[in-house]
């Protein structure tokens, strides 16, 4: 176990530690500058001499290319993604970015790196696929104002994607409540605007507005909780807060503070009852953006929850401090059930996916509850950290592979949206005849979401359920093997969460498979029988998702190793 290496801003090792973020930052600058490079000149004051300074004026052909920003964003995000993966090759160094006085601001380790991987991976795919979503009417000076405007705002869209990625990675790295909040808001604001980006569409604008309003309320409550924690401990540092929690974690103030923080992040992961805006937002946003909300944004919420609940309010600190466990258990149960039941009757595929996303949030919360339960109850603890690492690995693995099949599903809908509309289940009708590749891909994404072997979704669900059951049975497992007699009354109550997950998975089969029925057996809608709009980028992204879904299902061991390294590096006292 390596010790933390403290690095001051711009000191030794700073660039290596924050390489992905710096790449994103450079990409942001490029996105702002490059579209403005042109034949602009500068008149030296008092003279008639004009000096070429390449800024403004008539743009060059290459810099005015409306596809340019998309490529810059894709390459930037892709480079950041590759950088995070490469950093796993010879083990991630634990590096903390500290202020001059030695306060930790950001911490780079396996855990934060794996989440960066999720964010950048999802954003790369979404950015790449978005190339076929924004309309481009051509290049040149003879465009109408509308077209020019359309070309211009291409850059805006991708700038927002990059800021979103930057904000998310700050959340993953944060070791300080203030930094955490800044990252959270940077990412949130970017997503609010992304949801409402098509302001010509009424639905999109309305959805963005709602998402923004409800989101700001949740953020407000969360911020209030953070300030309560500060009021109580006099510090914003995670480690200071955690130490305080051990001493007097039973005070009402920190408990309520944590509760309010739960509201803020609960909105991000769309946990009941804070999930109401999510279906509207997903349905109103363009599909790639909805895909980001369902994968990257959700992972950001989960990492925030993990940090707040398992590091700051660590249940092992004090027995009474674990009241949030019960709370989280109830929320997870309600969330997964609500999501699945609402999805059952949904006739809009995007809303259906939104509710399925709510249900998956419930599964994740159940897993976090189980980790807490393991830490809390002495009688449950087996080999130190073993069960917690197993469950946490499962959570991380789930979030990684979710990018493949959730985002993939949204990208398929994105192609249909370009064709006109994807807001009814019947829009998928006859897809198997119109474009078999998309139909097969969509079907595989659906059954992976449902958890059918040997796909990635099955492996992740199996791991989560297996982990929870292991936590619930604890030491009893060995004794049962040895012939001990135990009943259901003896297992920890998180066992029931695992059971609820199984029942919910069974329910979810219905609506996932219905998509297949519509695609393969029903006729296309009136007037939508022709071929789908072209665009190789989105299909390439779908293919990548499809390969990942299949590959992670049959050969999960390498990725699992990465996830395990990440899980172990969350809390070093577990080893």
């Amino acid at each position, binding site marked *: 176990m390596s010790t933390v290496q403290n690095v001051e801003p711009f000191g030794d090792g700073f660039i290596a530690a924050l390489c992905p973020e710096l790449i994103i930052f450079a990409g942001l600058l490029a996105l702002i500058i490059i579209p403005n490079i042109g034949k602009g000149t500068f008149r030296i004051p008092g003279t008639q001499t004009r000096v070429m300074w390449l800024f403004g004026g008539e743009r060059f052909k290459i810099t005015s290319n409306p596809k340019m920003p998309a490529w810059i964003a894709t390459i930037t995000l892709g480079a950041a993604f590759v950088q995070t993966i490469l950093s796993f090759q010879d083990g991630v160094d634990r590096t903390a970015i500290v202020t001059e006085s030695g306060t930790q601001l950001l911490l780079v380790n396996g855990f934060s790196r794996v989440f960066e991987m999720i964010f950048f991976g999802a954003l790369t795919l979404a950015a790449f696929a978005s190339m076929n979503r924004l309309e481009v009417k051509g290049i040149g000076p003879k465009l109408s104002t509308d077209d020019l405007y359309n070309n211009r705002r291409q850059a805006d869209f991708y700038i927002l994607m990059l800021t979103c990625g930057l904000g998310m990675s700050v959340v993953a790295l944060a070791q300080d409540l203030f930094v955490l909040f800044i990252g959270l808001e940077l990412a949130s604001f970017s997503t609010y605007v992304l949801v409402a980006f098509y302001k010509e569409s009424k639905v999109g604008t309305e959805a963005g*507005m*709602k998402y923004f*309003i*409800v989101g700001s*309320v*949740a953020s407000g*409550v969360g911020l209030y909780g953070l300030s309560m924690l500060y009021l109580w401990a006099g510090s914003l540092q995670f480690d200071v807060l955690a130490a305080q929690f051990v001493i007097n974690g*039973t*005070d*009402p103030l920190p*408990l*309520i503070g*944590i*509760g*309010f923080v*739960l*509201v803020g992040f*609960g*909105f991000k992961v769309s946990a*009941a*009852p*804070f999930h*109401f*805006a999510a279906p*509207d937002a997903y349905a109103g946003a363009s599909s790639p953006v909805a895909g980001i909300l369902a994968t990257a944004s959700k992972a950001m919420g989960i990492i925030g929850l993990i940090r707040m609940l398992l590091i700051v309010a660590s249940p092992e600190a004090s027995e*009474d401090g674990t*009241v*949030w466990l019960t*709370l989280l258990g109830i929320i997870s149960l309600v969330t997964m059930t*609500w999501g699945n*039941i*609402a999805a*059952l*009757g*949904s006739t809009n595929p995007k809303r259906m996916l939104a509710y399925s996303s709510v249900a998956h949030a419930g599964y994740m919360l159940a897993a976090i509850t189980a980790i807490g339960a393991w830490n809390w109850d002495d009688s449950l603890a087996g080999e130190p950290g*073993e*069960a917690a690492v*197993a469950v946490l*690995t*499962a959570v991380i693995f789930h979030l990684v592979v979710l990018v493949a099949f959730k985002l993939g599903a949204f990208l398929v809908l994105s192609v249909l949206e370009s064709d006109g509309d994807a807001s009814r289940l019947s829009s998928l009708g006859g897809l198997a005849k119109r474009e078999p590749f998309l139909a097969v891909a969509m079907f595989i994404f659906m059954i992976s979401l449902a958890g059918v072997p*040997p796909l990635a979704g099955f*492996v992740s669900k*199996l*791991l989560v359920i*297996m*982990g929870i*059951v*292991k936590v619930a049975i604890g030491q009893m*497992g060995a004794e049962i093997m040895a012939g001990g007699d135990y009943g259901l009354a003896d297992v920890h109550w998180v066992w029931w969460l695992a059971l609820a997950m199984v029942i919910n998975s069974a*329910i979810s089969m*219905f609506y996932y498979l219905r998509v297949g029925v519509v695609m393969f057996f029903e006729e296309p809608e009136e007037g939508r029988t022709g071929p789908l709009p072209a665009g190789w980028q989105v299909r390439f992204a779908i293919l990548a998702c499809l390969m990942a879904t299949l590959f992670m299902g*049959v*050969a*999960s*061991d*390498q990725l*699992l*190793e990465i*996830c*395990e390294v990440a899980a172990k590096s969350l809390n070093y006292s577990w080893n």
Partner: protein
Amino acid sequence: MVAGTGTDTIIDSELMQFAPLIILLPMLAFPVILFLGRVFNRNPFWKDTMKEGGIIALVVMASSLIISLLLIKDHLGGFASMKDSVDFLWLNSSVYESGNLTSISFGFGIYIDHITVMLLFVASFLCLLINIFSIGYMNTDPINDNRNHRFYAEFVLFCSGMLGMVLADSFLWLFIFWEIMGLCSYLLIGFYYEKPSAAYAAKKAFLTTRIGDVFLIIGLVMMWDMFGSLDYDVIFSAVEDETFMAGVSSSTLQWALGLMFIGAVGKSAQFPLHVWLPDAMEGPTPVSALIHAATMVNAGLYLVARMFPFFGSEYLQHDLVDLAFIIALIGGITAVMAAAIAFVQHDLKKVLAYSTMSQLAYIFTGLGCAMFLANTLDWQTDADAHYIVIVAFGAALFHLFNHAMAKGMLFMASGSVIHEVHHAHHHLHHHDDHHDDHGDHDEGHEEEFDAQSMDNMGGLASKMPLTATAMLVGSASIMGLPLIGGFWSKEGIIANAWRVALEDPRFFLPAMCVLVGAAMTGFYMSRMWLKTFAGKPKTEVAAHVGQTNTWIKIPLFVLTFVTLSAILFAGMGFTHWAPDSEYGLLSEKNLFDGIAYEMSHAFANGDTFFFILTYVAIAIGAVLGPGLALSLYGGSLAEGEKVKPWMKPIIRLNAWVYDRYNFDNQAIANSGLSRALENRLYFDHYYDMAMLKIVAGFSDKSAETDKNVVDGVIKKIETGTQSISKVVRSMTTGSARDYILMVAVGTLGIFFLLWGVA
């Protein structure tokens, strides 16, 4: 992912790494041909030069054959097994182990021993020849235009299934490839799916073999339960392990093997699961050749041959005698029954179909007897016993080889006949509009004329000399005429059946059956040849038949020589083929010694009993049966027709016997027995009736229960959850105010809960 490539090579062969290609090449060609066929259908280059995929298939099958031959050559140095396997682990991570979940291993490996080598050669060699034949047969028939790619795609998949089954290193993979073959047989038999009879035949073949497969899988599960693995390696070393075998119940093992044998009965079309085979003639003739000679039916024999280590185990001595008897008995019954039915068939291919059934039954009898000997004699230590066992086992396997070669040739030759008769018919009746529409089957006279019926042939020996020769040699091999092909192996099977009958009186029945069957074979094979090739043309069409094309001639030519040179194979010790190097190829004996030995062994056996038996068998199989046929069918050819010199004596003999001893067999032909035989002993009738009464009745009841009880409950659950879903979704009002209200409610709930606790 890949846990490691375990190479447990007893014979070091660098070629082992290429062995998977034998299976993979045809398997990959399947989607390629299908895809290209869809894309380039009707494209002239695809149609004429690529033969709609036939050339791709040809290249692939030739590659498979070449690799197979190289592998076989490497194997011939000694008679141990070669093995090479790759394991793939699923759910393989320390994370799973912490949850007490062990990773699931999927391994595939290649296992080569003396049984594999034989079947590998038969399958890859015949698949290639049948492929060549198909190009001449399928691509010249206008009915098949623009859909031959489907044929070739399914064809290569079929071959891949057979080769995979032969090479696989475990019973599990054997079963997987076995099922691939089942699927392909369904697809190919139903190639003309627009014909109701073809669709029906395909269904029948699939369902009948499926009955056997159910038992096979039960047997495999029992094996798994006993040995904890289905790998040959593991199981075959376990049966030789004294401590392990002490914990195995031999009666359970016998049941497991017996259930697996039922699978083989289905696949190899033995009584009572034989009903699918004659109907399988609905497929194109190359498919019949493929199913009957190269692949499908041999699968069942291969499975039984694979069971040898159980019977040969020291620790199971005398325990599996009953099963050996059942194998031999099923063989004996089928041999006689199928031969009897073949007496009255008029369809050329149907005669061959029943002949296949009957000959396979011989092999089963041979295997059953060899198994009995292995199970009762102390063959692993006693040299004499050893010799007896491997000769018995080798005879059965050698008959498989001879039968496959001869039957492959016979089917292709029959295909050649049918093809030409069909063309001649077209030529006669569409003389004016020959180029207009070949596939017009709506016209009445098309329906009446049956190109496969022997009643429409006759006198073709002069018109199709090569085909007639091939058919003659093939028939002689199946009949077991001395010195030709199947003679060596059939004598071996009969001799061993009697040897066993002397030991165990129960075996008297199968031994009698194979002896009588020899005479019957002589009769129906001669009848088939004479009705087709000798005598005067029975119809106008038969008088106008022409010679076939080159693609069809090549395999006939090659196989004629393979069949005739069976004596060489016998000399090399094919009849002594068993897991021991002493009697194998490349032993100290040279070829001429081997031939001399075989000759003296067959014709001048020192043991009086076997000496007499040999000549009895020859007398009834080569004289009595054919003689009867000679007097009933055929006759001299039409005036002015000339035949090749080697067929002249037979035609003359036929004319002489026919003229002198011909008698009226109307009384027998119209008897009840004959009618029963023509109706295939009413098996289909009773099976259909049983299906209708029992299975259909049960299905109706189940459907009712399903509709009212199961569906009812599901519908209730569905409507229930849907209405809950409606309520839940109605809470998502679409108004941001309500959402904020819910957030507030949630926040307050959390607040009060935490407040209360704290």
